[in-house]
Each structure stands twice: as C-alpha cells, then as structure tokens.
C-alpha cells in the first residue's frame, strides 16, 4: 500500500502565503479534506496533482519524490465540482480517454473491457453512446468519476464533487462512492465543505483552515475532540453555540448566570476569559441530570425540519443560542424559556487563541 506524504508544503502567491507549512500522510482508501471555502483545499489538491508547484516542501508517493514531477507524468486523476467531461465525445470515449492518452498503448479490447467495467460500476452502461450534454447532472458527474477511475491512478482527487447536485442525489452518490472506493487501492482524497459528508464517510479526515492543516484523525474523533475552535466549527452542522465566559478555578459564568464548574485543565485560581461551546443537541428544555445548569432566554425563531426543531433563542446578555430538540414543537415569538445543559457537555476554547482547553467529559473512545 503506498502512501502520499506531504512534508512542509507551502505556497506563496502574489507575495501572500496561501498554504503554510503543511505536512500530512494520506493512506490508500478515502481521505477527507474538510474546511471552509477559503481554507485552501482546492489549492492543496492542485499542488498534489502537480498543477501548481509548491514554493517549498516535498511530496513523496510510495517512497518516490514527486515534487518536481510534471502533472502529465504523475499518476493522478481529478474530478471537479463542475462535471467536466469532453462535450464532443460519447460517454464511452470520455471514459476511454485517459487510457488512450497513456504512453503504453493498450489494445482496443483491453480499453473496451476497462470502460465497460467502469460503466457497470457507476451505472452508466445504458448511456455509453450518448453525449454528456444529454445526461442529467448526476449522470455527468458519474461519467467524470468513471473517467477518473479508469486509469487506476495512484492518487484520485475529488474536489467537492457532489456540491452541484441535489441533496438526495448527493446522499445516494456518497454511498455509491464509498463502496466503489473500498475496492480500489488508490489513495482517494475527497474535499468537502459540509461536515455531514465527513461524518457520513467516517474516515481519515484532515481539517484545513486559512491555508493550514489544523487537525487530522477520524471524523468522529475530530467532531468529539476538536483541538481548536476552528476545527469544531468546521465539523459542526448545525453550528456549535459559543458563549463568552469568565472562569476561575471553581465557577464559570456567562451572561447573567454563574455555576459551579471545575475541570482539571482549569486548575489555576486566576480568573480567565474563555469561550464556552455547546452543541445545539446538548441544550434541553428540561433539566438533564442533577448537575444541570439553567439559563433564561427568549424565543426568536423556531425552525421545524420534521424530525427535529431548531429553536433560536436570545439570552439577556444578547448572545444567541440554537437549541435542537427532537420532534416538532411550535414556539411563540418572544416566549420566555428556561434552557438547561449539563456542564459535562461543555467545550472550552481560548478566547484569543481558539485552542481547545477542554472537551466534553465521557468522550474518550
């Protein structure tokens, strides 16, 4: 099994640092690259493809240094967000194109066999004779994926490939992609801006923010134990609630509330400003357990999704919190509520650094 190893990759463009000192190891199978739109995911993928030369750092594939290798020489496939196919070629010819462009020519039968294999894998067999423009968006993207997989490249890069598709189609294709890639031995790097996709794949995840790699690990791990506020935000959908708070060794306060709170990480006695974080799903409208902390708030908006309701409330301090409750409930605007949470479910982030000081207890897995 080969690995793609990046060491201290950085990129300067227009005298600005775009990628900072990034090191990562990608194993075969699916690797997820997640982060906001401006994080630099596409730029990093272009570097890995060889379309852009890094300003410094090295790239190693299966032990070989490929930093200076041109893109045509690399064993790389790329799938874009915008369903890119050759418009004047049929689906068959599209899938066959990377095979025909190779140095070592394969026989017509070998090419046809591989194309048919890929078509079957992606459900495209009835469409082989059509042009991409005659297919739906989902089908076009499948053609692009088939074309990317046809040549059994060592590295397959997918840049938010499902972003332009219906959400239901996205669900379906994600499942298909997981089973497709489970058989292939390529190193697949899949980028997305949607946290739910990361949890869906539940595989090795790399979180990027503003050109840096800020955390890597299994998706669920990062979700439960983010190292920083940026990582928590990148992995949270709906967004995590943040409250500014003051903590000393024994109590914590936010808004007008103060409660007993101590964590080994906050052992010092001096009081400190931190940012508390709590997931919408961990705020309730009834006390949960003996340690529940309550706060009063006012309803601003209730959003019903059918399976759950998101209640947007405002605290007296003006801060806003989103509460996710199961099932459907309607709330009158401006209604006063008391909300509860268990301090064990709190995250703590440094108010300036954004680094995680503590995470919810009981998440050790």
């Amino acid at each position, binding site marked *: 099994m080969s690995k793609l190893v990046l060491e201290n990759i950085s990129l300067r463009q227009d005298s600005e640092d775009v990628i900072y000192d990034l090191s990562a190891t990608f194993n075969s199978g699916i690797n997820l690259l997640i982060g*906001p*739109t*401006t994080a630099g995911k596409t730029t990093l993928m272009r570097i890995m493809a060889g379309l852009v030369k890094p300003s410094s750092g090295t790239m190693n594939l299966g032990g070989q240094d490929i930093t200076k290798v041109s893109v045509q020489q690399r064993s790389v496939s790329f799938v874009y967000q915008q369903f890119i196919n050759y418009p004047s070629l049929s689906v068959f010819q599209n899938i066959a194109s990377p095979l025909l462009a190779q140095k070592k020519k394969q026989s017509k039968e070998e090419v046809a066999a591989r194309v048919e294999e890929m078509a079957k894998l992606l459900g495209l067999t009835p469409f082989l004779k059509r042009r991409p423009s005659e297919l*739906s*968006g989902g089908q076009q993207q499948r053609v692009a994926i088939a074309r990317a997989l046809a040549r059994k490249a060592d590295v397959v890069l997918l840049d938010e490939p499902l972003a332009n598709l*219906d*959400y*239901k*189609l996205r*669900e379906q294709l994600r499942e298909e992609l997981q089973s497709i890639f489970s058989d292939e031995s390529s190193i697949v790097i899949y980028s997305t*801006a*949607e946290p*739910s996709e990361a*949890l*869906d794949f*539940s595989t090795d995840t790399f979180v990027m923010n503003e050109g840096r790699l800020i955390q890597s690990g299994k998706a*669920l791990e990062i*979700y*439960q134990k983010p190292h920083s506020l940026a990582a928590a*935000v990148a992995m949270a*959908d*709906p*967004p995590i609630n943040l409250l500014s708070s003051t903590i000393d060794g024994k109590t914590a306060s936010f808004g007008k509330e103060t409660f007993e709170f101590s964590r080994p990480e906050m052992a010092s006695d001096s009081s400190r400003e931190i940012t508390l974080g709590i*997931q919408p*799903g961990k705020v309730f409208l009834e006390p949960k357990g003996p340690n529940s902390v309550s706060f009063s708030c006012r309803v*601003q*908006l209730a*959003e*019903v*999704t*059918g*399976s759950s309701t*998101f209640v*947007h409330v405002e605290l007296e301090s003006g801060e806003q919190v989103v509460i*996710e409750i199961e099932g*459907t409930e309607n709330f009158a*605007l401006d209604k006063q509520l008391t909300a509860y949470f268990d301090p064990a479910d709190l995250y703590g982030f440094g108010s300036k650094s954004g680094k995680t000081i503590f995470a919810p207890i009981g998440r050790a897995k």
Partner: protein
Amino acid sequence: MAEIRLEGVAHSYDGGKTYALNPITMTWEDGRAYALLGPSGCGKTTLLNIISGLLKPSEGKVFIDGKDVTDVITDNRNIAQVFQFPVLYDTMSVRKNLEFPLKNRKVSRAKITERVNEIAELLGIEDDLDSKPSKLRSDLQQIVSLGRGLVREDVSAILFDEPLTVIDQNFKWTLRNRLKRLHVATGVTVVYVTHDQTEALTFADEVLVMNKGSLVQAGTAESLFLEPQHEFVGYFIGSPGMNFLDVEANSSLLTHNGREIGKASKAGLNGTHRFGVRPEFLIPSTKSGLEFKVDRIEDRGVFKLVHLSKDDFKFIAKTEESYEAKVGGKATFSFDPKRAFVYDMNQMAVSTVSPSSEGGN
C-alpha cells in the same frame, strides 16, 4: 400583500409534447411562507417563473388578489425575485441599487431616500450603503438583491429561486434564518424554491413537494415528515429517506416472502403493496418485532445510523447516540404503528400498519 391563485396552470416548452409542469390549481395565502421542494427537473423553477410573470403558462390562469394577471408582464405584477446568484448592478453603489426600482417607478426623491434607509436598516446593511456591491461577501450580496425587492412598498410576494446556491457553507445557516426572520418581520408572501429539504422545511410554513412536473403533497414540515401521503414524500424528505419494502396484503395482513411484517389498520386490503417506515421510527425492541442482522453502525455524533439486513432486504434505523449493538450480530426492531404506512400501486398511502405482536420474527 396578496393572495395568489393558480387555476389549471400547466406549461409545456415544446408545444404540448411533454409537460414541464402538469396542471395545478391552488391558492397561496397572503403572508405565508411556501417552499417548492423537489429534485432537478421537477418543474419548481417553471412554476416560480409563471408566478413572477417571467414565463407565460401554456395553459391556465394566474390571479393575484382576484385580478387575472396571466397576461400581465412582470413589471406590473408587484413581484420581487431573488435568483440563484446575486444579481446586482455592478456600476452602482448598494444605495443606488436599492433606489433603482423606485426611481423607475417615478417615486419622489424624498420618499426614495426614506424607504432605502428604512430597508437598509431592516436588512442590517446601513453601513454598506455606499460600497460597491462586488466588494461585499456573497451572502450580503444576496441580501442586497433581496433589498431591491423589499424596497417597493407595493410588493405582493417575494420569490426565491434557490438563493443559497452560491453562499459559503459557513453562511448558509445564518442567511437562511435571517431570511426567515425578515419574512416574519415584513409579513410578505414568500415562495421559496429549493432542492434541499432542510432549507425548505425550516423556512416554510407550508411545503409543496414536487416531482416530474406534478405537485405530490403539500403540508407542514411536520405532516410531510410524520404522515407522507405519497411514497415520493417518504423518500425525498428525511435524511436518510423512508425504508420501503414490497409486501403482499392478504386481508390486511402484510407479508414479505412469507414472513409476517405487520397488520394494516384498514380492513380488506389485498394484493401487492409497499410498506414504508422512516428510520427514525424503527425502535429497538427487546421483545416483539423483526429480527435483523446488524451490518454496520455509523456514529454521526448526535445520532447513529444502524444498517440492518434481513433475508433479501435492507433497512436503516436512526437511533440515539447511546444505542449499542454488535456489528455482525442480531438486533430486534419494532416500529411505531402511527408512523408506518402501506402504499398502493399508485404510491399513495392507504393505511397505517401495526407491528406483529409475536416476538422475534
């Protein structure tokens, strides 16, 4: 503010050979928020363009506040529309963009300034009034696009055509509830087109699910979720969608390959039907229910998706985070009798289903 009524409105782009929109008759009440939800090509954008007047329907009539506006051009329908990407006049400042619709309607200078300031404050963009719109973030650009619609006091409805398409993931959430709050504050009728169920369900008072040019079911988010009248609604709404299984009904007893699944509450049901139950309503049971093999468990943080298989079919169950089961082992699930349905050959719900009372089937 206005009531919009459609009578037999249908549209074909190729002179009657195929219909992008099948005949639809309905009334849109003043001040409510509606969502048109459906996959690509279901006809939702066609319907939206017919309401706004950008498209004349090949059949049927459109009424706004009782007046027949089928032949009235967009200009005079008092409709505002927000598109998939911010549509702004690049050469004008934000302020001038907002003034534009009023200037074209020859409103007095004083009134224009007053109104623009009012709307800018409502939208929270009064500090950006003198910037060029291209310098703003994409979600604020959409807000300016929306502002051009709100600035006209005679606007009867605002139509949104997948407005969050180009918005950064981080800001989708905030823009969405900002739009909702604006709707609540202004009380204008809103029609919102999207293919994203979360957007539709959280935003609208009433959701119209569309597929292949037809309206499949209209209702509140709750009713669509809890009581899908059509298989498509069960499939399209919910992530993941409803679990379906072909069953044979014999005097309302439902079986699959001879195995008893449950009993339909409607008497005298016979023949081939489909059984449907949402992952959320498959309940782990210790006593009675269907016994499955656990193929895979996905931990999603706040909930778990349990992939189950039995004989020749697979189901997915959505459970609490605390649910534990051994992968490869067996697990028994029952279902909520109010939340399991039987669908006939037309994909319409005909009955609810109670689980069998015997244990470990």
